[in-house]
């Protein structure tokens, strides 16, 4: 598996130090903040249908986020994580992939899942952890997963999915599937040991994996620059592992499309792992449990508002005649109504049956687990009022 590459190190006779700025990586931008293209920019493959689908998905996610943050504030769901400001990253990168490619995410990539076709009902069922949730109500909100859509179930521990993506892609390569794996993570997660393990192994094994880092400036309250890392962000690390690397404007749908399309080609046709560092800004709080006013300024947030990925795309689409103000408003109202209807519906669906508590720990419940469930049921029968979710339909 090791490639034949000799250490051809040039010899110098005076100390020659390389500092953190020996390599500085530029940022690919195609669509300017004013909604026009850079002259001579290298364009991705796209057509109107694709761009409209990307736009509509971004708007859906933004609307879903707004509504569900409100629902959390009203105490209707326990927790939520928005992706405001980063919708272009997940949606446009998913648009550059084949539907058969595996997606492994961190938790702020619901846009990729929506692009693949996860329905508003499916989102709601997970958020309300009801009996229609594919995850059987076991994980916190926003921990989505769907085998049919090749979207690996999200887990909370940061960075764990990164070496898993390397392993998954290894299997895809060995099985000659012609598919790849994309793995999303934030710049904070890139400080975990699993990031190092994953990129190094991917480079050694030459597997078809796209590491997609969302550098949004903050890991909860910790600013990226100076407190998460001392170097030039995440991108130079890819070079250190011997990997093709690019930095892009994560708020530019066209830059994300262009880079991910090329990354996919490199991954699938040449078995080259690729690192993409997408620069963006987490416009919302980290989660509904976080208030960003405690650690950053209104001015900084305003600076980023003018770079908003959805506004930028809409400006361009309007110039192009692919979108008009009325459509935006109509579409927004339509999506809002759909989200609200689905919310009200999902809220009414009961929790999964208590028997689901012991299923899927193993492929079959063990004798000890069955015994523990029976004891629990006996207890619930004794105190039905204390366990209203299950006591009504225990047998």
């Amino acid at each position: 598996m090791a490639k034949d590459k000799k250490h051809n190190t040039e010899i110098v006779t005076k100390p020659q130090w390389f500092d953190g700025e020996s390599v500085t990586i530029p940022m690919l931008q195609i669509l300017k903040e004013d909604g026009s293209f850079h002259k001579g920019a290298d364009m991705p493959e796209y057509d109107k249908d694709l761009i409209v689908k990307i736009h509509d998905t971004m708007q859906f996610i933004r609307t879903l986020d707004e509504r569900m943050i409100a629902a959390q504030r009203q105490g209707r769901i326990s927790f939520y994580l928005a992706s405001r400001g980063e919708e272009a990253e997940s949606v446009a990168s998913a648009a550059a992939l084949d539907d058969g490619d595996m997606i492994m995410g961190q938790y702020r990539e619901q846009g990729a899942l929506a692009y693949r076709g996860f329905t508003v009902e499916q989102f709601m069922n997970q958020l309300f952890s009801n009996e229609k949730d594919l995850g059987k109500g076991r994980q916190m909100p926003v921990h989505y997963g769907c085998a049919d859509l090749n979207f690996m179930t999200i887990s909370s521990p940061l960075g764990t999915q990164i070496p898993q993506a390397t392993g998954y892609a290894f299997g895809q390569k060995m099985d000659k599937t012609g598919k790849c794996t994309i793995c999303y993570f934030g710049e904070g997660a890139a400080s975990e040991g699993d990031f190092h393990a994953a990129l190094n192994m991917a480079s050694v094994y030459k597997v078809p994996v796209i590491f997609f880092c969302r550098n949004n400036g903050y890991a909860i309250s910790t600013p990226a620059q100076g407190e998460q890392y001392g170097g030039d962000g995440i991108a130079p690390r890819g070079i250190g592992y011997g990997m093709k690397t690019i930095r892009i404007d994560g708020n530019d749908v066209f830059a994300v499309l262009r880079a991910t399309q090329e990354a996919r080609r490199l991954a699938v046709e040449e078995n080259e792992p690729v690192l993409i560092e997408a620069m963006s800004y987490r416009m919302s709080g980290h989660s509904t449990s976080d208030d960003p006013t405690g650690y950053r300024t209104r001015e900084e947030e305003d600076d980023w508002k003018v770079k908003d990925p959805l506004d930028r795309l809409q400006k361009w689409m309007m110039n192009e005649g692919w979108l008009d103000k009325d459509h935006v408003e109509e579409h927004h109202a339509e999506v809002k109504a759909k989200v609200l209807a689905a919310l009200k519906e999902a809220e009414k669906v009961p929790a999964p049956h208590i028997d689901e508590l012991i299923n899927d720990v193993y492929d079959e419940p063990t004798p000890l687990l069955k015994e523990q469930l029976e004891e629990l049921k006996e207890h619930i029968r004794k105190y039905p009022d204390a366990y209203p979710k299950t006591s009504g339909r225990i047998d």
Partner: protein
Amino acid sequence: MAKMNLLQAINSALDLAMAKHDNVYSFGEDTGGFGGVFRATSGLTEKYGKHRNFNTPLVEQGIIGFANGLASQGSYAVAEIQFGDYIFPAFDQIVNESAKFRYRSGNEFDVGGLTIRTPYGGGIAGGHYHSQSPEAYFAHTPGMKIVTPRNPYEAKGLLLSAIFDKNPVLFMEPKRLYRASTGEVPEEEYTIPLGKADIVKEGTDITVLGWGAQMEMTEKAVEKAEEDGVSCEVIDLRTILPWDVETVTQSVLKTGRLVISQEAPITGGFASEIAATVQDKCFLYLESPIARVSGIDVPYPLCHEKEYMADHLKIYEAIKRSMNY
């Protein structure tokens, strides 16, 4: 049948598993062409190619993270951690990821094809970091299976079951017995069920329970006790998680006495779990306190290894104390 030591039996199981399915992969530090520091994977690269049996970079969390991903893709991933003592960097991947993969996804995804092989245990002058028995750390983890064999026959049958079991399995190999334990082993494929304890010898006066390398100590102690006229029922637990409560409690209901031996330190060791469960289920039948013969609560020592180990004399004394209670 062929005479094999425990390493050869493991090598034979890997060989048969890899022959059976193209998507069985074996990997770890130095496990490639070199065949592993204990030679458990020797010959596999020559036979199945460098893409089926290969080296990994030196990173345990990466090995298990990679293995989780590969297993979730539908392959059989047989990962080696060079020593059980070095499994802790992968603790997060095992406990938070492997063990919960199926449950958290509602069975949308699983890593049932994962097997983690690791040499464990003392008695080889390995000091702190080449001697540990970490089973109890993992036994507190719903979703994992933990298996350890006592001899070459058991090793091959249990490993073949572990590789093709639909759940992630931690397979702990008693390295003290790698070459010391030999026996007749079928050359063809066979399996031994997981989750089933083995009654090695029937008896009526006392139940003596252990697993892995500790079974050798246990059997020696029992021989001595039987010379004194004590009829011992000897049980090899084989699977630590999920463990065979039924077989163990049935035995204690019959004998009324239980001695459990383990290599690991006593506090928080798996013997404590067994003792608590047995006293709960067999309270009225117990004739004496349940005895745990263990390592003491210190890091695994070098110069005092002999004193530290839960050897046959300590087990023998525990049997006598129980009988004379």
